[in-house]
């Protein structure tokens, strides 16, 4: 974890309520795909956790959706703003997994962290098949970017306006060796049920600190209580304990 000032370079609307922000700063503590940063915003007490989409040298890419006052404030930035950021939070995905055909399963703004993951997996010689779910056509983003990395990209929309009508579980490939996933909890549950391989699942929670101090985001796992922010957000499939 590092606390640094980042400078906003660009902040563009790429889908309905979804923005891509690039920033410059000390990214040295962002080591694993699936980690997140926690952004202080003026007038807001708590920081806003946003997953890392990509990191290139000192450039950080974040993709986020406007869901409340904090992300709305973020969306109005136009460039040159200075942001106080805690970076390199969370455990992130572990890419040292068995097999070659990797399934990357993402829903909505759960997709961005899979981008750096795909890059790393492909660099390590793996094949990536993406199963991405969106509500509607206007919500779709970043599919070309994944294709450019060399991923096979399959899309499902709830409305059916683009790709297969339905959910990510409706566009699972026949064969894959391992699944990485990030998205809303109902999607994670569906992926958990449908997938027969090992996998890593990235969870969301309302957080206090984002670095393990407050126990605000603890969840029960097979291996005991874990803090989503520090021991997660990525849990191994075999650790997961679904409540109710």
């Amino acid at each position, binding site marked *: *974890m590092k606390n640094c000032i980042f400078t906003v370079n660009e902040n563009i609307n790429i889908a309905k309520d979804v923005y891509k922000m690039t920033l410059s700063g000390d990214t040295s503590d962002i080591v694993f795909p699936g980690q997140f940063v926690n952004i202080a915003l003026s007038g807001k007490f708590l920081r806003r956790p946003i997953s890392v989409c990509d990191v290139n040298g000192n450039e950080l890419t974040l993709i986020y959706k406007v869901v409340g006052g904090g992300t709305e404030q973020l969306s109005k930035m136009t460039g040159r703003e200075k942001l106080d950021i805690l970076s390199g939070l969370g455990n992130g995905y572990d890419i040292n997994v068995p097999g070659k055909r990797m399934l990357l399963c993402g829903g909505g703004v759960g997709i961005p962290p899979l981008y750096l993951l795909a890059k790393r997996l492909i660099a390590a010689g793996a094949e990536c098949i993406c199963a991405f779910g969106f509500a509607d056509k206007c919500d779709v983003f970043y599919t070309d970017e994944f294709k450019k990395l060399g991923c096979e990209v399959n899309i499902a929309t709830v409305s059916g306006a683009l790709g297969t009508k339905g959910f990510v579980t409706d566009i699972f490939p026949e064969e894959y060796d391992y699944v990485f996933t990030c998205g809303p909890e109902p999607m994670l549950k569906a992926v958990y049920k449908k997938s027969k391989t090992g996998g890593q699942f990235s969870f969301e929670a*309302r957080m206090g600190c984002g670095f*393990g101090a407050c126990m605000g985001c*603890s969840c029960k796992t097979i291996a005991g209580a874990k803090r989503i922010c520090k021991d997660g957000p990525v849990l191994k499939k075999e650790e997961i304990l679904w409540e109710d």
Partner: protein
Amino acid sequence: MGRLSVDLCGKELDNPIIPASGTFGFGYEFAELYDINCLGTFSFKGTTRDMRFGNPLPRIAECESGMINSVGLQNPGIDKVISCELPKLRRCFHKPVMANVSGFSTDEYAEVCERLDGEDNVGWIEVNISCPNVHGGGMSFGTDPKMANAVTKAVKAKTKKPIIIKLSPNVTDISEIAKACEEGGADGISLINTLLGMRIDLKTKKPIIANKMGGFSGKAIFPVALRMVYQVYEAVKIPVVGMGGISCAENVVEMMLAGACACQIGAQNLVDPYACRDIIDDLPRVLDKYGIKNIKDIIGGAH
């Protein structure tokens, strides 16, 4: 003895800055960021006899200048705290630590304190009689002078460590509770714990916190905390540790003028992990600005 040093129940602190229980874990996360030996001491995660997972999620809600938490005393239980946490802590923190204890009966309080009595790196035991998160739990002790008195007597009988009773602000008359603790033999009082608060999600139209209500802390509550510290300082003769919404060195000076001999920093650690270190570094500048030679000289100065 530097200009920041203060006395807390007969033990000298290098400075009055103490991260508050529940916002600093057992210190490890912060020890990765800076040398936590710069602190006066810190109050570790509230510990109960048995292991507790705590409350369901969500446990956190944001507020204007503050936050609500409803963690519900998640902790590994006193056995694990003694066998795992305290030895691990010795390696990164070389000063006496403040043990924070919660319980659901006077017996439980007494038992946990007795277990801590033999731990040499525990300098003080802070007894939380005020956690608003646990149904049928700590709340009742902190809102009734008789119960507060009974808990104090029960723990005093089991340990020679200085006992600091941590009070709930959700009461009509804080002075009455503080006096009951003093009469029970408390060596100090710390306050305020969180105010009971609530937020509702406009989208779901239901309370954000799974437990509906939770403890409201952060900068917003400072004026209430300051007022209660001022009142308790007048009500008792034992030392008062002030906390509640402190976010900067100026707040520390203000809290000490109200009567605090030391200050705990809570929610601010969660949004600025360097808060305590930075406040300690900034205190000499603030003392200079207001013409204060030694910080201990100002304790209760506003009375």
